[in-house]
């Protein structure tokens, strides 16, 4: 009983700030302006297939790139001296202390045709390259902004992998590839899953990155939702409908991910 009582603050928090808003999203998504039940908004989703497709595609690429960058780093981090780990973690976290908008804005200045990177390349006779207003720039923005969310869960899982386990595998004759495939990756799976979720979900719903780095013509779902709510039409119902579809997509992808669920998966978030 007591332990239940202790959970009360969060349960109340969740009820008020998660369940109720979620209910409201569904309410708006399934009604029209006058509050009558209607699925018209949902039926219009076919129009936005390309936007959905692009959002998911770019988010998948960003997640994979994050994983490739973060995985070796997290492993190296977890094998370092404790005080060095602290410094390195600080460096990972440091960009996150800055405002998200400023960080993205800074990339805009870097990537412009007359921007910093092209100027530097110009000195060695290269370019100028067209970097901004491309899908690559959007992916770059996502990776840059969300890679700490991949590093941190991976790191926290990997610090728990005891060196003696790796040594045992080596003693039993595993080469380094086998150690990686049979010991480290299986043991760090919960971290991989958490990292993927934490990068994929914000990437798929971002809007400011695509607007600033994508030049406004690479519209993502986030932009579309924002346009419904802060645009001239103030169409909360359509915005909510799009959100529902997005949630269902994420839910589906997460459900598929959970199919990889194994016994050793405890410790994973979601």
């Amino acid at each position, binding site marked *: 009983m007591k332990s239940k009582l202790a959970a009360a603050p969060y349960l109340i928090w969740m009820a008020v700030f998660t369940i109720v808003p979620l209910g409201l999203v569904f309410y708006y998504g399934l009604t029209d*302006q006058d509050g009558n039940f209607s699925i018209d908004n949902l039926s219009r989703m076919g*129009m*936005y*297939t*390309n*936007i*959905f*497709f692009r959002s*998911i595609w770019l988010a998948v690429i960003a997640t994979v790139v994050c994983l490739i960058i973060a995985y070796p780093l997290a492993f190296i981090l977890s094998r370092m001296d404790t005080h060095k780990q602290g410094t390195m973690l600080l460096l990972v976290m440091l960009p996150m202390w800055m*405002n998200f*908008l*400023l960080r993205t*804005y800074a990339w*805009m*200045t870097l990537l*412009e*045709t*007359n*921007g910093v990177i092209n100027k530097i390349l110009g000195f060695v006779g290269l370019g100028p390259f067209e970097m*901004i*207003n491309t899908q690559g720039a959007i992916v770059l923005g996502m990776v840059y902004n969300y890679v700490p969310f991949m590093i941190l869960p991976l790191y926290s899982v990997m610090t728990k992998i005891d060196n003696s386990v790796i040594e045992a595998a080596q003693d039993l004759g595993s080469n380094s590839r086998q150690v990686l495939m049979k010991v480290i990756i299986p043991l760090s799976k919960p971290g991989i899953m958490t990292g993927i979720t934490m990068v994929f979900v914000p990437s798929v719903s971002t809007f400011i990155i695509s*607007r*600033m780095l994508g*030049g*406004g*013509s690479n*519209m993502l779902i986030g932009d*579309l939702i924002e*346009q*419904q*709510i*802060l*645009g*001239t*039409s*103030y*169409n909360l119902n359509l915005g909510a409908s799009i959100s529902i579809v997005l949630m269902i997509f994420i839910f*589906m992808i997460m459900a*598929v991910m959970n*199919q*990889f669920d194994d016994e050793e998966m405890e410790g994973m978030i979601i």
Partner: protein
Amino acid sequence: MKIKKIISALSVLALAVTSLSTTAFADVEVDGGYDYDRFRGKNVTLQVYNWGEYISDGSDGSLDVIGEFEKLTGIDVEYSTFPSNEDMYSVLKSGRSQYDIIIPSDYMIGKLIEEDMLEKINFDNVPNFTKYCDKKFLNPEYDPTNEYSAPYTWGTVCILYDASRIDEEITSWASLWDEKYSGQILMFNNPRDAMAIALIRLGYSLNTTDEKELKEAADLLIEQKPLVQAYVMDEVYDKMGNSNAFIAPYYVGDSYWIMETNPDLAVCIPEEGTNLFADAMCIPKNPNLDSNNDEKRKEAQIKKEAAEMFINYMYETQVALENIEYICYSTPHTGAYALLDEEVRNDPFLYPSDEFITEKTEAYVNLPQETNRYMDQLWTEIKISGDQNKWAFPLMLVACVAISVFTIVRRFIKKRKDNM
């Protein structure tokens, strides 16, 4: 009108909250005969909600307009800013906060009036308005009886271009469709402003509700899309300021601001005409004014009168002059206009002739909801045009099926292994 720098978007929350001592003497010159002192010591607080970077704030030797008001009247001002009319509207509509003064644009004021979200201003408490407001800004289309608003600034949409890289003199909106500048054209990233340019080119009204005309405008924008480098709003500061594009439509005040950082830039108002916009001070509805509770009603009445005092103060010549010099737009205040530099007063883009204004410009009015929605739908179509990949949806389906099959097979194999 639009926010000046992205940084100001970050400071959307309260800026100036504290006033120092209420006894200090004000440094601002005000007209005699108005009792600015009547609310001193009565603990009145005004919530002012304005565009970002849209008031003289004391930086670089300008006048700290809000601070001076607090000194002059003893009224506390809580000043906060919004990045767009629509942001302001959704804050107001959701009832998240009660504001005493807001400064939205024309069509938004029309919308607020229509939805009964504004109080009528008692202009007896705003003598400076009748004294100084230029007659041509009285009874505007968005507030035909001029009961709800007092114009703060006005301006037009112009073309900003890089004269060092464009040889000809730009005189027409058609330049935004010129293939010579392919990849170097910026365009508004909001449906209303972008459609307006296309509608002007087609010779239609900016406020058309005719779906056929709107569709034609959308088609024109789709035709333009391959030439457009990016759809932007405030990013234009960075892009034009650092010569990353040749040509962009933007609001004239902001364009002057950008020109200060990049001397290669030039401005023109296209000959076909343009949108004339105005931002005006309004008092949002305060439900307490109709309250049955005497105390609450009285408090609301005092607040409303204090808000009117604020509007009157903003119409003081010195204050209006400082504000307009700070924000670079055009002023409807005759006193401030007379004191501007001659060069500014004769600037054909900041202060176009009366003839041009009446014949070639049109202000936005509030459109019916269906038109807004239709326009938004067209806008989305414009945005997704050109990269319609007919394989997108089938591919997505195939991917879904593949993933499902993969997981099912995987489960099956695993189960078999476990049973062995």
